[in-house]
């Protein structure tokens, strides 16, 4: 399931809500707003997204994960709007019979989401003003690693 929303989410409640007849393993990833980047303090960030394409890309990523691993259930929540340090941005939960599928698919989902879901972060950097976060080549490499391992 995919949810794109302004409001916060409850990690424990979402994990408890995962459903399937044969769940033996739950894996999760939660992404938070950092309070600094190197020497620079970050006051807050605003996440912009492309309504419509965001849901479409996330649904495609979920379908790809379900094709690659035997998942009992799967949830991706991504927030948008202005968020302050410590606030939750993104949640990925995967449920499977065994840990390897749960852990691998969770890592796959967050790696692919970072390079293909249309979100952009605008950071508030105090006296330096606002700055759009630049994409990192390390994120591309993390996503490409999964392309190379496609079964």
């Amino acid at each position, binding site marked *: 399931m995919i949810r794109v929303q302004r409001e916060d989410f409850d990690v424990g409640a979402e994990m408890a809500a995962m459903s399937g007849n044969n769940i033996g393993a739950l894996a999760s990833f939660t992404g938070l707003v950092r309070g600094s980047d190197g020497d620079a303090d970050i006051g807050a960030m605003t996440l912009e997204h*492309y309504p419509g*394409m965001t849901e479409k890309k996330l649904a495609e990523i979920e379908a790809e994960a379900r094709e690659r691993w035997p998942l009992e259930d799967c949830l991706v929540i991504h927030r948008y709007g202005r968020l302050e340090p410590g606030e939750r*941005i993104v949640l990925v939960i995967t449920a499977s019979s065994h840990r390897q599928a749960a852990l691998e698919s969770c890592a796959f989902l967050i790696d692919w*989401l*970072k390079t293909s*879901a249309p*979100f952009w972060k605008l950071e508030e950097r105090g006296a330096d003003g606002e700055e759009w976060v*630049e*994409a990192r080549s390390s994120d591309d490499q993390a996503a490409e690693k999964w392309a190379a391992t496609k079964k």
Partner: protein
Amino acid sequence: MKLLYFAWLKQKIGTGEEDFPLPADVATVGALVDWLKTRGPGYGEALGDLSVVRFAVNQDFAGLDHPLADGDEVAFFPPVTGG
């Protein structure tokens, strides 16, 4: 057709969305970029370095050679930074 701009492209162009008929001699995303650049300095600035611009046609990633039809939704944005 509907054009959408996100993040700093929206700021440089000065709007997030516009609608107009597909220009007669514009058949691809690349030709649309060239045509947009003639519309004002904001467009030239936003679309000057295409190595930092990504394109989507009807909500799928597309390259500069992707064909266009009237009624398409075409979006321009920087490499994504969610997650």
